[in-house]
């Protein structure tokens, strides 16, 4: 280090050696490697990921976490306040709110992840084709513009009004509402990639279009798509709870967070805990996913990260 600076400054080595040794103001930075180091550098991912892992754990191991049957009725013991026997109390049919909330994590996470996967896959396909083929682009994007003009929750409501309430239909309805946004994002990335020299080179060297799309374009869309997918997952969980809350979502027999809150709605002024616990779990889970999304964006898209 000192030899390097001395050469640069054109000072003889002797003077440098004669100088009083300077104390190191900055201790040498040794970035910690491995997983722990990664978490240290990305606290949002660490916190969000940690919370999310807890929720996933709760969802998977719900039957073993001191829960009862979430649908078992006990009319004699309805609307009990939270106590040792009912950690989160019971609802107006005597069902254990703690068990229902824990099992509800399964429904919410399933809907969130499934919608993120489905909307990303369909949006990716539409965006790739639309961004690469100008003839298709004009038509497809007009359709997407139209769909984007319908507020997503209303679109999902309209779809649910025409189908029978089931978890599967909720997933499809929310996915349809999210697809236009994904395909717009992918299309934007593809449009800028199409003009890149390496794509031109691939075209010039006779690579088939399908191969260009999959080998050269697709990988570059994955980073922004992953970030978008986490936000879609969070939004889908909120939309699911809203749909269930207003009676257009999963059937009332399914213990989803939205359904528990919908059932507690009539009693919320006297028994607020029925609404409170699912609301807390939902908010924490969505917050966790949003934090992971923010962290991923910081890593994958540093230009965006600086401003937002």
């Amino acid at each position, binding site marked *: 280090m000192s030899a390097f600076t001395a050469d640069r400054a054109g000072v003889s080595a002797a003077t440098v050696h004669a100088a009083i040794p300077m104390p190191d103001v900055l201790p040498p930075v040794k970035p910690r490697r491995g997983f722990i180091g990664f978490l240290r550098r990305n606290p949002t991912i660490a916190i969000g990921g940690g919370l999310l892992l807890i929720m996933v754990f709760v969802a998977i191991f719900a039957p073993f976490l001191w829960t009862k049957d979430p649908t078992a009725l006990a009319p004699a013991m309805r609307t009990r306040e939270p106590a040792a026997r009912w950690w989160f109390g019971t609802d107006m049919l005597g069902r254990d709110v703690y068990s229902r909330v824990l099992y509800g994590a399964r429904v919410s996470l399933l809907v969130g992840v499934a919608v993120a996967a489905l909307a990303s896959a369909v949006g990716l396909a539409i965006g790739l084709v639309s961004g690469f083929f100008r003839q298709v682009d004009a038509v497809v994007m007009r359709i997407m513009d*139209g769909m984007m*003009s*319908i*507020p997503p929750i209303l679109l999902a409501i309209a779809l649910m009004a*025409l189908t029978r309430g089931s978890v599967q239909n909720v997933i499809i309805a929310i996915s349809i509402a999210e697809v236009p946004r994904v395909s717009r994002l992918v299309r934007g990335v593809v449009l800028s990639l199409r003009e890149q020299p390496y794509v031109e080179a691939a075209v010039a060297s006779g690579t088939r279009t399908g191969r260009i799309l999959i080998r050269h374009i697709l990988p570059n869309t994955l980073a922004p798509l992953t970030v978008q997918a986490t936000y879609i997952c969070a939004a889908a969980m909120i939309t699911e709870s*809203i749909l269930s809350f*207003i009676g257009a979502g999963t059937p009332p027999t399914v213990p989803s967070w939205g359904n528990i809150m919908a059932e507690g709605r009539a009693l919320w002024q006297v028994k*607020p805990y029925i609404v409170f616990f699912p*609301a807390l779990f939902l908010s924490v889970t969505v917050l966790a996913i949003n934090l992971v999304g923010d962290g991923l964006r910081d890593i994958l898209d540093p230009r965006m990260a600086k401003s937002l």
Partner: protein
Amino acid sequence: MWAYVIRRVLATIPVMAVVALFVFSLLYLAPGDPAAIIAGDQATPQDVERIRASLGLDRPYLVRFGAWVWDIAHGDLGTSIFTNLPVSRMIEQRIEPTLSLMVVTLILAISIAVPMGVVAAWKQGTIIDRAVMGFAVLGFSVPVFVVGYLLAYIFALELDWLPVQGYTPFERGIGPWFQNLILPAIALGGVYIALIARITRATMLEVLSQDYIRTARAKGAGQVSILFLHALKNAAVPIVTVIGIGIALLIGGAVVTESVFAIPGLGRLTVDAILRRDYPVIQGVVLLFSFVYVLVNLVIDLAYTLFDPRIRY
């Protein structure tokens, strides 16, 4: 300029056509027999046939679509299956509460969010900035009805400062009207405030690093005048754009907020229609909201020249 305005106005026609076509086609795209689903499980075959006829499902798709568009162009949104009233009249009766809620939320949200974003950008990296950004993440994560119940519980039930639920028409005085709307507006505005504050901060950070801001500082302009006169003006276009796009969030959130606070508006109408599977009403509300959304964003697009005279068409 006028050529652009005309082009832009004409460009909304295909968008609205797609919206109409899509909302209309849902009836045909839905799996199963929509008439049977709408009629419910206890319906007789006669009921199903009656609903099929009233929805026009017994006629060819294109004929029905043509007639439907013709009716909409004449202000006829169809007839409710449940009440047998024209959908347009049902919407008319419910529009005031929703419009009030939206306007109050819009004003409240903008007047909170923009200063928040400006201050966060000014104090970048400090505890104030972190607090604003933390609030923004929270705003995106807590669903609107959770905020609604929390606010109602604290300010209406515990503190008894404001009415818990309900709506007072505007003509019965601005005071009671506003008292009923303030909690729903804050609940509904949460996500919207988070969105606007975030984009305001981001744009302001970019603008504040520009040369002309340094020039303004050098010539002795005060901090407030730099932030709000020099910087905010130049940051206006992206902020206004997001305000327009975010209205979709307000529309979706209004449906829920009206349920939480028992406001008899269009959202309540939609929820009632879902429970009765009254599809014409849902169709009408979705169509109306979508058209309003398209028009608001059209107006914002056309208003860019007001915010930034450098933009010329």
